[in-house]
């Protein structure tokens, strides 16, 4: 009784399926959620437009030198506002923070997933998440009062041991170390460790068991499996996590303001010198006494840091989403 595979012309046509909702209520339901979802785009667009309109007087007057120049003189007859040292400072502090946070974050993730017994791992996870919930003003308060003195002594040791490397060199040891990008980097690191850890931890814990067990069966030691199996397969996700952390670091405001000497004498890489920059902190520092002309300059600064962090975060979310396919439906 085989199948008669006749093909009636009408019946073999693929039909249009009413995959969407049919009832009126459903139409409204999906329409409302779609509008809400699109609000994410609207919000980004609104932020760009409003900042841009307010930033235009400065941007049009300063041109490209707003990004690269290093003079901030908003109340002159012809105001000059150039963000260079602050922008570079944000990048320097951001990278210092990431450099310090990454080993801590990967270590914590490795410890949680591969070393600690389950209850301890759960406690450790909670601790890391709690760290993420600490307000930046609290971190700043701690940074200025508790951490700075310790970090200054770390900075001195680094200078004495590694002063021959340009990065750790200081011109005058008597006026260096305090309020330096090194300390700001540490503060930022404290704030982004949880971000990198949680992404890394999730990727570690979702890793294919067979891969690890296979490597162990082949005589892999902890170290060789970590270096040759775990790190390579999770590297792209970890990089995504690091970029998320970098995005956060670039926009950090209050905590950095307390522990960094903001200066327009650009500091390229001498992380132990007592001067640096951070766009977001600069905006907050100047805001209280800003004249009308400086107001536009600060808006322009906000626009720049927004676009930079948005780009970093977009790339980061893209990478993280791709590295975590189990999060898709």
């Amino acid at each position, binding site marked *: 009784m085989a199948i008669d595979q006749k093909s009636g012309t009408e019946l073999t046509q693929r039909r249009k399926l009413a995959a969407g909702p049919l009832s009126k209520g459903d139409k409204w339901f999906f329409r409302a959620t779609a509008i809400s979802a699109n609000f994410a785009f609207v919000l980004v667009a609104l932020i760009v437009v409003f900042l841009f309109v307010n930033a235009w007087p400065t941007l049009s007057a300063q041109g490209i030198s707003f990004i690269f120049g290093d003079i901030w003189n908003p109340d002159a007859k012809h105001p000059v506002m150039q963000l260079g040292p602050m922008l570079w400072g944000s990048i320097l502090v951001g990278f210092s923070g990431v450099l310090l946070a990454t080993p801590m974050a990967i270590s914590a993730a490795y410890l949680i997933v591969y070393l600690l017994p389950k209850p301890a791992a759960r406690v450790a996870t909670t601790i890391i998440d709690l760290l993420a*919930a600490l307000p930046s003003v609290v971190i700043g308060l701690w940074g200025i009062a508790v951490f700075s003195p310790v970090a200054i002594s770390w900075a001195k040791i680094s200078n004495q041991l590694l002063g021959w490397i340009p990065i750790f060199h200081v011109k005058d040891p008597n006026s260096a170390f305090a309020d330096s990008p090194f300390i700001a980097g540490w503060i930022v690191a404290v704030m982004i460790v949880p971000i990198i850890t949680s992404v890394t931890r999730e990727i570690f814990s979702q890793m294919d068991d067979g891969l690890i067990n296979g490597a162990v069966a082949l005589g892999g030691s902890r170290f060789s499996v970590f270096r040759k199996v775990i790190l390579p397969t999770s590297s792209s996700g970890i990089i995504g996590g690091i970029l998320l952390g970098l995005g956060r670091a670039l926009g950090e405001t209050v905590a950095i303001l307390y522990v960094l000497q903001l200066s327009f004498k650009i500091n390229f890489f001498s992380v132990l010198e007592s001067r640096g920059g951070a766009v977001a902190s600069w905006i907050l520092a100047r805001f209280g006494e800003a004249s009308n002309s400086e107001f536009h300059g600060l808006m322009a600064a906000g626009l720049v840091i927004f676009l930079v962090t948005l780009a970093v*975060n977009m790339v980061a979310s893209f990478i993280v989403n791709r590295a975590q396919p189990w999060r898709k439906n």
Partner: protein
Amino acid sequence: MNRKPWAQSSATFKVQLALVSTIPVAIGALFVILGGFDFSIGLIGVFLPIQVIVVGVFGWLKAKKRGLGDALLIFFTTFFSTLVLVLLLSVLGSVIFEGFKALSPHFIYENNRYVGTTTSLEYGGVGHAILGTILIVLLTTVAAVPLGIAMAVYLTQSQSKMRGVVRTVTQSLAGLPSVVAGLFILAVMQFTHLERSGLTGALALFPLMLPTVARVAEESLRLVPADLRMAALALGAPNYKAFFQVILPAAKSGIVTALLLGLARIVGETAPLILTTNMNNTTNLNPFSGPMASLPTYVYNFLGSSYSSSQQRAWGAALVLLIFVGILFGTARILGRKKSLKTSKKAK
């Protein structure tokens, strides 16, 4: 979550391990306490090198080259993780220790009407700032939570191809620098008649809360088995009823967690409030007009002064703020824990 294909430990091994990990600490401590070394020098100059050498030698003796790699891996991951733990404990400890000194009943409920930078701690408090924070944060919540949940619904219930893009943009918004959120509302205020008030502060916090709520709510909705939705639809339910009567109740604790984590995210935000609300030393219960105090701006304000009583006020307010965050975070954790227990029990 925890995977340990290397599990191996005999009693002697444990003893050796204990010795290996305590001797360098002891030596380091000796140098600091008896030798009068600076703590950091003791840590970096004495403890670290000795510990690395001891651990390395131990690993080498155990299993030659493989042992060396493993020993160093375990040591460094433990060391860095301990560093994280110490940093966190240091933050918590100092805020609790310093903040407790300023804490007293009147510090919680009084406002700062007659307080200057040098006024002693016997007068004034953070009552007005607590109320301000609560009002501002509630106002943000009213707008951000429904919208965030709606976004999560879109990301989990609809079949749209745009979901990936929406998710990426929402996640990127989560990294919005808080000072930019403040500038944004400030820019909006240039074109409207809005005056600085609790409302403008709440508006500035809105873009910061939204992505957190959307992400956590999305995750909790994703945890609801697809089967339930199918069962509801197979009973002839339209999608919206399936969502409101079946999926949402099943995800209730997750949604509450989203709310709490969203609150924890914004309750300590400082920069946006400094830009969009004016400071106030007195109690203002009307978020729609007049300056309004809040805990984070209170901390920021008094930290700016170098007088010790002001510093103390900053620590005290920071502690109160931390308690807020702790309550929100702790409740979210407990709810999340309950949820995971339930699902794991069901899985059995």
